């Protein structure tokens, strides 16, 4: 069988896409469809599982298997798919409310278990679908419908949280930057185990321009820190650099330091400390903010370990024999005469 040749259209469905005009979700959808098409992998081998939220409508628009499930539970549902069907490519589509608020627990457990699936978190720093309440990534002081006097909830840094939860692959990208998004998708796809990508996504209706520091023509050069494996971390057209100082990552003027002192990015570092330090460079997209792959390390995946135990048990004990199993706790026999019994 030759590998199928797809175009983006093959991954579109007949459903009308129902996001607000201008929503960043459109761009992400296009990036994902294009990426999938480029894989030349049979369409039926993909499964997209989402929770609830604007982002979570995503599976309706991708012509693969999919489930638009319930709020926050997509990682758990996807785990059931991934564990039992290692032949499939399993994707979770979620929002900042879906993944980090109600679904926070499933997220961190899926990451620590390293179940073989990819999680795309569309972070628009707001609850879109329920029409604009602050989310666990909204900034302090944000006034929304449910925080008319300003939010007082200190936000998560999703990358730090994922690293603290023992994630093996953690990346961040931007809706608007389709080529960067596709690079992240590719790395995630090639990663064995749980891959977590935070995608900054503009909600032009309830939280417009939240990412302007990274998308604005003026601003982006100054603020976008591109992490590239094996390369020193510099940005702002080379004017700024990141160095490690006393265990912290700090931004300095490039010409104020020895070029060798500049931190060379290594996502494969088994120790997550540096990745964590790099994640602390920003707490939200309000200044210099790293994009790219923070961490990409290998650890046995949950599904392969489960299935290895099954295989080992079969190997050792042979295929289960039910008649033997039910007799395994000791039996006795009543003979046909009716009331004798022997051990």
């Amino acid at each position: 069988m030759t590998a199928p040749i797809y175009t983006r259209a093959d991954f579109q469905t007949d459903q009308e896409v129902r996001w607000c005009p201008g929503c960043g979700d459109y761009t992400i959808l296009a990036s994902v469809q294009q990426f999938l098409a480029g894989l030349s992998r049979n369409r039926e081998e993909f499964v997209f599982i989402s929770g609830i939220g604007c982002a979570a409508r995503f599976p309706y628009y991708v012509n693969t298997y999919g489930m638009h499930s319930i709020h926050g539970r997509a990682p758990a549902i996807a785990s059931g798919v991934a564990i039992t069907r290692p032949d499939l490519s399993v994707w979770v589509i979620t929002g900042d409310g879906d993944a980090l608020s109600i679904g926070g627990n499933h997220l961190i457990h899926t990451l620590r278990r390293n179940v073989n699936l990819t999680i795309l978190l569309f972070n628009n720093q707001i609850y879109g679908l329920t029409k604009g309440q602050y989310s666990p990534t909204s900034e302090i002081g944000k006034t929304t419908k449910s925080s008319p006097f300003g939010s007082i909830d200190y936000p998560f840094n999703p990358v730090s949280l994922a690293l603290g939860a023992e994630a093996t692959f953690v990346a961040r990208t931007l809706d608007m930057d389709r080529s960067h998004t596709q690079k992240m998708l590719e790395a995630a796809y090639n990663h064995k185990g749980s891959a977590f990508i935070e995608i900054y996504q503009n909600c032009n209706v309830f939280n417009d321009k939240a990412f302007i520091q990274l998308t604005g023509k003026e601003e982006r050069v100054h603020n976008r820190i591109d992490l590239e494996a094996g390369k020193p971390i510099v940005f702002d057209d080379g004017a700024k650099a990141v160095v490690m100082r006393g265990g912290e990552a700090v931004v300095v003027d490039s010409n104020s330091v020895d070029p060798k002192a500049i931190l060379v990015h290594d996502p494969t570092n088994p120790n997550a400390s540096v990745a964590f330090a790099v994640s602390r460079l920003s707490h939200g997209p309000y200044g210099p903010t790293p994009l790219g792959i923070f961490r990409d390390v290998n650890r046995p995946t949950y599904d392969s370990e489960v299935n290895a135990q099954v295989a080992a048990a079969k190997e050792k004990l042979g295929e289960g024999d039910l008649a033997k199993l039910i007799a395994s706790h000791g039996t006795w026999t009543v003979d046909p005469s009716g009331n004798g019994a022997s051990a």
Partner: protein
Amino acid sequence: MADDIATVDPSSTTTEVLEKVVIRFAGDSGDGMQVAGTRFTDASALFGNDLATLPSFPAEIRAPAGTLPGVSSFQVQIADFDILTAGDEPDCLVAMNPAALKKHIEDLRQGGTLIVNTDTFEERNLAKAGYESNPLDDDSLRGYRVIKVPMDELTKEAVKGSGVSGRSVLRSKNFFALGLLAWLFHRPTEPTIDWARKKFANKPEVAEANVAAFKAGYTFGVATEATKSTFEVKPAALPAGTYTNVNGNTALAWGLIAASQKSGLPLFYGSYPITPASDILHELSRQKNFGVRTFQAEDEIAGVGSAIGAAFAGNLAVTGSSGPGIALKSEAISLAFIAELPLIVINVQRGGPSTGLPTKPEQSDLLFSLYGRHGESPVPVIAAASPSDSFEVAIEAARIALTYMTPVILLSDNSIANGSEPWLLPDIEAIPNIEVDFVKYPNGPDGTFLPYLRDVQTFARPWAIPGTPGLEHRIGGIEKDAITGDVSYDPKNHQLMTDTRAWKVANIANDIPDLSVDGDEDADLVVLGWGSTFGAIRAAARRARLDGRKVATLHLRYLNPMARNLGEVLSSYDKILIPELNTGQLLKLIRAEFLLDAVGLNKVAGEPFKVSEVAEKIMEMTK
């Protein structure tokens, strides 16, 4: 006679032959009463008695030794006929310490045999149990046949030389008690001795200590002629075949494996530990060579969530818990219902509400099973009647789930889960297959796939699993168009889908057996039950019949939908009694459905019915 145990000298002790006897072992959590009870049970099973057991653990944590909350007990009834319960009140009580005596003595029938370990009846223990004076010394045990045995002393003596020393020595005293009971009840000794040697194969000194204690107990009986008469319960006239002694959780787990084999689908069990359901997880996690995949999830929601994913992916998907955990699964079960995915949800009921009485049985989750979800979601519900019935019920739950593409709630309870009974092993070959057809080809016009184009018989929607080319589709929790499966907010479609889902489930009634009455068809009174009250109801009806009353009984395995002929059958009796371990839940359903003035016998005390409680009510209603 195994090894070198002296046989009972027939000249000095008489033997009373009994039809049945109820024995309760009670002691501190550390005294090994569950082991003693199980060994006694297994020996009796191998001997050929019919039997039923009722273990009772201390509430949660190992309480400090010697206290009332720390008491653990195990009751077994053995009989020479087919019995139905573990018995109402013990004929024989073994009390290993004052707390055990205090807690259980009230239940011992007048004239019953009490075996006490006198060595534990010293001041500290008496005080812990709340005794002001030593009951062995005062008059309070009058009315029982008391056998006083210094078990600690004798056990120590017996295990000398076994290689076990120090604190571990007294660990064997349950075997001493067991030996004494083997003598008293004419039990075969080999099974117990064999078991000990096998179990402790890699701790031979422990094995030997236990065997030595066991023999010492037996010999103590022989030597001291501890009672005037010993008791014999002859083997029961059970149907021919091979038996095992099985508890409900194990039978349930095995039933799921059977369903997996019969459907050809791999079994997936997503669960979070909770008493009394955890043992299902434990049992299944051991059976990996059956292709079983277990997933200990981070919580119950993830447990059911993972099972929903596994169902979507083409597995026989199961989740299980008890009340508090089932409550958490409610939202997700509702998703499985609207997405029409096959899923088994096991609820091993315990005392509620909230944490309630975690180690006690109760049937208070029936209405919760039927109505414990938002929206109109009439999930099928079936219930096991006894430990061994759990095997069949598990297969039946799978059959319904897979045939009708629906979640099914399977109810068990703590007394079924941990209770045991002899089980005539089924012929595996004879269990019918469960037909599962994954769709392979488009079913719609122009090669489209219509995920809601239903089977005309079952009204099940087609199951197309990921990996099948050409059938890519999306399902979800929002209402879907009846044909295309696209999201639909159309009012008429919602009405249609609501009705269709309800109808699909109601229609299962055509695929379950009609109920048949047990007992007197011409009775005025029918006693209707479901779940673990099965045994108590049947036994009570028997007892009433012995007293000349006419009484019929009916038992429901299917709670939703119910058997088609239920209304008709019920209407043919003047009086309907519904005993339940709740405040009247089936009662409500029957009254609403059939407008019949059924009455309830209700108990919510964290205990099964006594046969006498049900019998009394029957007597009252058949006067």
